[in-house]
């Protein structure tokens, strides 16, 4: 990018079930915390990128969601861009904000993702989630995200490239990490036996492997390099985005692989340079699929990489130290923002009990929607701590 873009501040409202809090309340907490973290006020914000997936269907606020929700925190006059890209909305908003700064149009941009999925009617929430695909293709199928991930995993299990125990054990890891995260929705470690015995959702997935409905918000203040003084400086080293396509040939690289390769090329880095990653495990075992797509292992090597312990918090490449989507929670529009909030804490060294060892390069991968078997959207961001670890 032409101008350096730095993460000046981050903040979150915890993810979970908050019947007393509206979207305005969730967003207020995240925005105030991010601005406070940056040492800035609301009137320093020059542009806003607001991500949300389902407020139209679930709260009836179909249009001007950002302006309406952020009225609560006194945002007005500045440009507000409302972003939907299903579960990848948060990272799409982040990317647009980074571009605005890189262009030199603004020096301070606010990225905020907010979602309220608990509406006391599970069918309504599930129906809203199902709109993350072309309705002309999926009408009447009952194609839920749980089924989409279940199908991706079944194929690999039947090909003998993963064992069922991997799905279980990576879920145990997710919950172990989530238990260390005060912002996570699911904060209880689970045993392998509990994962196996949990209610079946879509074979081979059980309830404990899946992310659940969630309320929450996350915010990031981005700034032109050097604009905000901080003890540790973190910049966005690369941002890449792709959308879904029909794979006519199963040997074609997936959207995730294509997006990651673009991000690595832009960063001048490779997968071996990544020190910590937050990836889109809407179902905990999906983490294993993305190891391969992000180049963390060779094709077919996900089980071996997991078994080596490398992706545990104490390993050489901690993946989803936050607990990921499946344990931190997955309030759709907030997820992509929350991934980068977590990575910022990791790069600063302020992640507490779930801190990775002195990471310098961090990768976030956020996917959204469904497009004929692939994701409809995928974004990969690579962050760099430019301050030396002392």
């Amino acid at each position, binding site marked *: 990018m032409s101008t350096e873009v730095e993460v000046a501040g981050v903040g979150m409202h915890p993810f979970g079930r908050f019947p007393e809090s509206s979207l305005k309340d969730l967003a207020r907490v995240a925005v105030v915390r991010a601005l406070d973290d940056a040492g800035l006020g609301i009137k320093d914000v020059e542009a806003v990128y607001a991500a949300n997936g389902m407020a139209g269907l679930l709260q009836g606020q179909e249009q001007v969601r950002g302006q309406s929700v952020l009225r609560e925190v006194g945002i007005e006059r500045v440009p507000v861009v409302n972003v939907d890209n299903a579960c990848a909305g948060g990272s799409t908003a982040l990317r647009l904000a980074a571009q605005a700064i890189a262009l030199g149009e603004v020096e301070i941009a606010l990225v905020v993702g907010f979602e309220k999925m608990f509406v006391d009617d599970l*069918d309504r929430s*599930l*129906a809203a989630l199902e709109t993350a695909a072309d309705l*002309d*293709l*999926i*009408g*009447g*199928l*009952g*194609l*839920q995200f*749980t*089924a989409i991930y*279940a*199908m*991706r995993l*079944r*194929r690999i299990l*039947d090909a003998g490239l993963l064992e069922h125990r991997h799905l279980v054990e990576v879920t145990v890891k997710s919950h172990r990490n989530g238990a260390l995260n005060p912002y996570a929705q699911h904060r209880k470690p689970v045993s392998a036996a509990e994962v196996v015995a949990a*209610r*079946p*959702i*879509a*074979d*081979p*997935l059980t309830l404990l492997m899946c992310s659940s409905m969630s309320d929450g918000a996350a915010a990031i203040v981005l700034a032109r390099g050097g604009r905000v003084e901080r003890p540790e400086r973190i910049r966005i080293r690369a941002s890449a985005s792709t959308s879904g*396509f*029909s*794979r*006519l*040939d*199963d040997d074609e690289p997936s959207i995730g692989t294509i997006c990651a390769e673009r991000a690595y090329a832009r960063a001048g880095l490779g997968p071996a340079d990544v020190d910590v990653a937050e990836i889109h495990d809407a179902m905990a075992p999906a983490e294993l699929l993305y190891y391969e797509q992000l180049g963390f292992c060779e094709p077919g090597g996900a089980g071996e990489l997991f078994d080596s312990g490398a992706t545990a918090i104490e390993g050489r490449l901690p993946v989803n130290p936050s607990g990921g989507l499946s344990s931190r929670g997955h309030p759709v529009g907030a997820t992509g923002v929350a991934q980068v909030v977590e990575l910022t804490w990791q790069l600063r060294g302020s992640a507490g009990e779930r801190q990775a060892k002195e990471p310098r390069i961090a990768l976030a991968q956020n996917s959204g929607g469904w497009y*004929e*078997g692939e994701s409809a959207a995928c974004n990969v961001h690579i962050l760099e701590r430019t301050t030396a670890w002392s």
Partner: protein
Amino acid sequence: MELSSAAERQNFTARPRYDATAGVLIGSECADCGARSWPGRGICNRCGSPRLEQVALAPAGSLQTYTTVHVARPGLAAPYLLGQVRLDDGVRVHAHLRGLAADAHVPLRVRLAFAADLETVPPFHFEPE
């Protein structure tokens, strides 16, 4: 052929998506690169050509993966079976499955079948050959 010809194409909702009598799905085929698609498109997604023709797609293919869904949805009692099929002419279709053995292992040959009542949504599914 000029791209602008695609602006004159029959409306999406007016195009047939299947022919239940013939037992096939109807899609599009690109006269330039051969790519097929279901439902048919207005412009080829692979090469950008507007020279698309309506074609009957292969009625059978390989079930690449499937899942048994245990969460009911309005109009869909649980459990129900969803699958991803690669038709013999290369088109990937997602649909309900019937008649699959409980321990079915993929890949598996499947064939398209239609409901007796075509008002059923969706009106077709796949079954083992």
